[in-house]
Every structure is written in C-alpha cells, then in structure tokens.
C-alpha cells in the first residue's frame, strides 16, 4: 500500500477551485489577510506564544490545566521528531488558526458565532457562542480552545489586560483572531489619513515578536505584498492541504541540506 503517511506529498487536488459551492476566497475589493510561516526560520523559541498570551488576554495556563490538556495558546509550536538517535532531529511547526477560506468550523456552528468576515478572517463572536464545541471538533488543526473556567487574574495582574481585546467568559470557544483589533485600528487610522494600509503596517503580536521574522503578515489581495511574494515560494505548502480548507496561512518548508542534493536533481 502507498505509505499512509505521504498524503501531503500526493498530487495536489485542483478541483477545490472549481467547486460550485462557496468560493473559498470571495472577491473582495478590500483585504484578504494572510500569513506566511517559514519553517526554516522558526527556531521554536516561543516568543510568539507569550506575545499572543499577552496581547490577547489569554488566561494563565496553570500546571494542572496543562496536565488536563485544557491550557489555551492561540498559537503553539508543535514539535515533531524525525529519525532516531544519532540522526534524530526536532522540527518546529507554529500552528495557529489558519483562517481557512473553506473553514470546516464555520458551517457547523449553529448560531453563526463563527463566520468569515469580508477581510478573509475567520472571526469568532464570543457573545453569540453557546459553547457547543462543534467547531472545535470540526477544526482539523485543533486550534480552537474551550473556556472551561471563568478566567482569573489575581490582582493586580488584571491591570495588564489589553482593553482592546475581550476577556472571554467560561463556556465559549476562542481562538486566534489574527489580532483583528490591530487590523481594525490600522485600517481606521489609514482611513482617517485617507490612504491605503501599507504592506507590513499591520503586525499581529506574534509576528511583531518573532525575532527571526519567521512569521510574515499582510494582505494577499495586494500582489506586491511580502506575504504574496513569499507564498509563491517553491517551498510553499499549506497545512493538511488534501482537506481542501484553503488556509490563509502558507508555510515554507524547512530546508534540509542533507536532502537537497538528491532532490534538486529531480527538479523538486
């Protein structure tokens, strides 16, 4: 049997683009925000993780919550082992909401608490959410987290809370927003100034923090933007591509020089 694990490498299925169902990327005159994550640059340093916690008022992940697997991080660095000692390697893969154009989480929500906004974001309306967790199940990337507890910050830690971001109550689902509050703020400012939003002007907290610039954010509708350019790299791939979720995040593969030679000859 074909190795069951190679799916990501099998021929890309192009049919998604011709589905007569919803167009994954509806034409908007506005923005289509996207991200590029360069696995060759990500060192796994976790700066993005804490930056997101800090920016987005994520509750403390106490020890027992980690053990219970109820800790929340809107972005996480997945670590995969490759090979055995002494050739074992660690691979880091930052995973956050992919803001799928064909989001499996959106269709299942009974109350429209999660939907696609005109800027191409998968947004979560906390007030609507009734906590069925159907979306969290349906998301193949497992990036949606449920609030098992009322969040608490022992005083005066609550002083750190970002006033631009809601504190989520218990019983609802939350996830990466692409720092939508930063996007909106920048858009408003650009509006006031009567100019378009410039490339690189919006920086989500994780992108801002990432010391190696492994994360790049921008407008995919702007063909001159850095994200547009990088997303056409020959190292580009999307996560779980065969599922046809049409993510707004493009990954760039890690370069492994020990493999390059054999493959480059075959014109990979």
């Amino acid at each position, binding site marked *: *049997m*074909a190795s069951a694990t190679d*799916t990501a490498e*099998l*021929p*890309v*299925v*192009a*049919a*998604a683009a*011709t*589905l*007569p*169902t919803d167009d994954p990327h509806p034409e908007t005159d506005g923005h289509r925000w996207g991200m590029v994550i360069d696995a060759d640059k990500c060192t796994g340093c976790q700066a993005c993780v804490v930056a997101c916690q800090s920016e987005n008022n994520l509750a403390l992940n106490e020890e027992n919550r980690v053990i219970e697997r109820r800790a929340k991080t809107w972005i996480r660095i997945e670590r995969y082992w490759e090979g055995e000692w002494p050739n074992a390697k660690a691979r880091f893969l930052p995973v956050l909401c992919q803001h799928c154009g*064909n989001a*499996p989480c959106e*269709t299942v929500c009974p109350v429209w608490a999660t939907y696609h906004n005109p800027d191409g974001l998968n947004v979560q309306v906390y007030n609507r959410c009734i906590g069925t967790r159907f979306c969290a199940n349906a998301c193949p990337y497992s990036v949606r987290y449920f609030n098992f507890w009322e969040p608490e910050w022992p005083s005066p830690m609550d002083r750190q809370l970002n006033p631009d971001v809601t504190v989520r109550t218990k019983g609802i689902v939350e996830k990466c927003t692409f720092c939508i509050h930063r996007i909106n703020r920048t858009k408003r400012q650009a509006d006031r100034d009567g100019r378009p939003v410039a490339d690189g002007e919006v920086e989500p907290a994780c992108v801002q923090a990432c010391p190696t610039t492994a994360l790049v954010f921008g407008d995919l509708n702007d063909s001159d933007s850095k994200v547009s350019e990088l997303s056409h790299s020959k190292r580009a791939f999307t996560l779980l591509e*065969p*599922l*046809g979720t049409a993510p707004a995040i493009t990954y760039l593969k890690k370069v492994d020089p020990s493999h390059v030679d054999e493959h480059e000859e075959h014109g990979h």
Partner: protein
Amino acid sequence: MIKPEAVGLSLTLRPPYRPSTIAISRKGTVAVAVGLLAALGVVMYAVKLFSWGDRAEWAYPAAITLFVLSTVTAAPLVAFASRMARGYWGLPARRVVELFALPSMLLFVLLIPILGSLPPFEQDGVTRANLWFGWGGGAPFLTDQLAVSVMLLAGGALMWFAAVPDLAGPPSRVRAMPAWKRLLFLNWTGTKRQWVVLRTSMRWISAFYLMMYVFVTMILTTDLGQSLLPGWRSGIFPAYHVITSFQGAIALIVITLFLLRRYAPSVGQFIGDEQAASLGKFLIALTLFWFYFFWSDFLLVWYARLPSEVAAVQTNVAVTYIVPFLIAMFGQFLIPFVTLIFNPIRRKLSRLAVVSVVVLIGLLFDRIRLFVASMSSENPFSHGLAELPEPYYPNAIDILFMIGVVGMVAAIYLWVLTRIPTPGGWEMREGAMYRREQKYMHAEVLVLGKPD
C-alpha cells in the same frame, strides 16, 4: 378499519389450479424477434473480445452488466421477500421472478472480459484503493467470479428446488427415473419429511442468496466503480446499489407480469391489480429510498468539501455525467415519485408498468453515469482527480452490445418460462387452503391463515 385493497380481494382461486408451462400468444414472432436480439448480443460480445481495447472499451459493457445485476439477478429476491412476509399477493408472482435466476447466469460470461480489463492493485509502488487489501492472489478477477458463481448457483438451486414438486409429477414417475435424474429431482415423492426439508432449505438458500447478492454487489461496485475513480470513497455506495437494485427488480417484475398478463393468459388469469397494489407500494417506498441513499451520499461529500471526494462527485453527478445523472434522477426518483403517489396509477398494473419502464431507463442511465465514469477514468492510482474528465461516449458497438445483452436475457428467460410450470403450483394451492371467506356480524370478511 382495514383498507380492502390491501387484502387482495381480486385473487380468486376458485378454478382448481393445475400447474402447466405457459402458452404465449404469437409465440413464433416473439421467438424470432428475441432470438435475433440474442444473436446480436452474442455477435457483439465476440466483436468486443476480438477488438480488445483498453479498460474504457469495457465501460458500457460494465454498465449494462451491472444493470443486469440490478434487475435480473435481483428479481428472485422478491420471491424470498414475499415468502418471508407470507404475503398472499406474491403467490402467483413467485415463480415468475424465480425464473430470472437462469438469465442471471449471463453475468458470469459478461464479467470475464470486464474484470480482466482491470488494472493491477499496485503499480510503480503506488496502490489504488481497493477492498482486497492489495491482495494479489486472484483479486479481483478470481474472487469476484467465485462470489458471482456461488451466488448464481444459489439462485439456480432456489429456482429448481421451488419447481421440483411441480415438475416431479406423481411419485411413481420419479421412482422410475434413472439415478442421476432422480437426484436432479431430489428424489421427490412428496413425503412430509421432504416437504419440511424443502421449505427449510429454501429458506436458508434464499437468505444465503440475499447475502451473496449484497456481497457481490459490494465487491463488484467497488472493483468496477469506486476503486477506479480517484477520490470516490463512499461507504454508502454498495448499499445504494443494493437499494436501487431492489427498485430495478420490482420494476422488471411489474413489466414482466404485465407482459405475461397481456400475452400469456395461462399466467395472466392469476395476475390482477392486487399485485400492482403491493408492488406499487414497494416501488414508491424504494423510490423514496433512492432519494434517501443518494442524498446521504451527496450531502456529506458536498458539505465536507474534501477536494478529492468533491471531484469524484462532480464527475459522476454534477458536471461530467450530469446528463445521465439527471435522466437517472428523473427516472428513478422524480417521475415515479410524482406519479406513484396517486392511487389510480399505483394500483393499476398497466399504468404501473409504464412507470416501471421509466424506472428502468433511469436505472440504466444511473449505471452508465457511475460505471462509465469509473471504467473510463484515466489514473486510478492517483489520490484525487487533478481535473475533471471529459464524458466518455458510447460508440455504435457499445449501443448494440447493450441491446444484445437485453436480447440474450429475454431469450433465456422465455426459454425457461416455457420449460418450467408457471405460476408455481404447490404454493398456489397451499395459499388457497389458508384462506377463507366468511361473514362476521354484518360484513363479509376474509380470514387469512399465517402458518408458522
């Protein structure tokens, strides 16, 4: 409180029933016509064999073969259902449908080149999806043919066993036979023990035939269907095929009964609108089932939007084969559903027969859209379709081949119909015994016995 139509008042067995082979009006004309069609089938089969092409060449033959499986081979199951439910309506029809076991045997022949044209499970280290875990030891050709043979033999056995009490004649005649012939006639002298054994074994063989039928459907639809069209992996598909086969079988039976009533009065005298009422009920139920099974399949693929699955469905439903699909949908669902909800249509054999023809046309196109799409698909080894294929159209040989197959089926059926007494004598007599008309209070009532 009970609707009189449901009881089958039209069935009257007053004239003492004697089993006999039937007489068909204008027998000669029919025989010539059918014989010519059958000959066409044989010739076309030979033509195809000699001009052996690639797998796609066998796409339309595969479609008609699965059409035969869904109608002719499925028909004897109705006899089984009728026995199980001890339904009185089925009595005169049982033999009529059991006889389809013989033309079913064509399946074996038809499948030889079709299965032979299939690609291997593994090629260049890549495996295509299959139900045989990539087993090279004879799958799919030998396994499928083996399963088909076993099923066909069971069907044949069933037909024969049911007919033996009628064929055997008086005990003295059987006792006088040579040994091999006695064995063939099960040494039938009609002892009580023999009756018990006969009934029990018929029950078991019927159940076995049903299971084999389901199994064969599953493997054939997968080997000739899903496993060839990349991305098509639908768990419900074998069940869909079985359900639509029942629909096809009922339609075929309705048409057969109608023709027999029209052209073979020896059978026709026992066939009334009682049969139509019951078969019509089944047909509309199965029509609804068509929608249920199709929708269960389509909805989930469309909703989940897995590109590989969607592409497969676009091929055989939404884009490439949309025309045959629409014909199938109208034929198998919309037209029968809209017409059969009306009692006057459902309860009249002639009208029901017209609807049944529509159903069979729909079924044929259904098989075409499904199996032509898969048999003609280019790369069964890929994980999903990279682009939607063009429709694969039949050529003249394909069309003549399909007509010829129908001819062969008809010819074999007619032949056996004139050899085995129809309807089945002993069951008809038994039915009459368990049935009595009497008065209760002010009403005429029917008392129906249901033996264990």
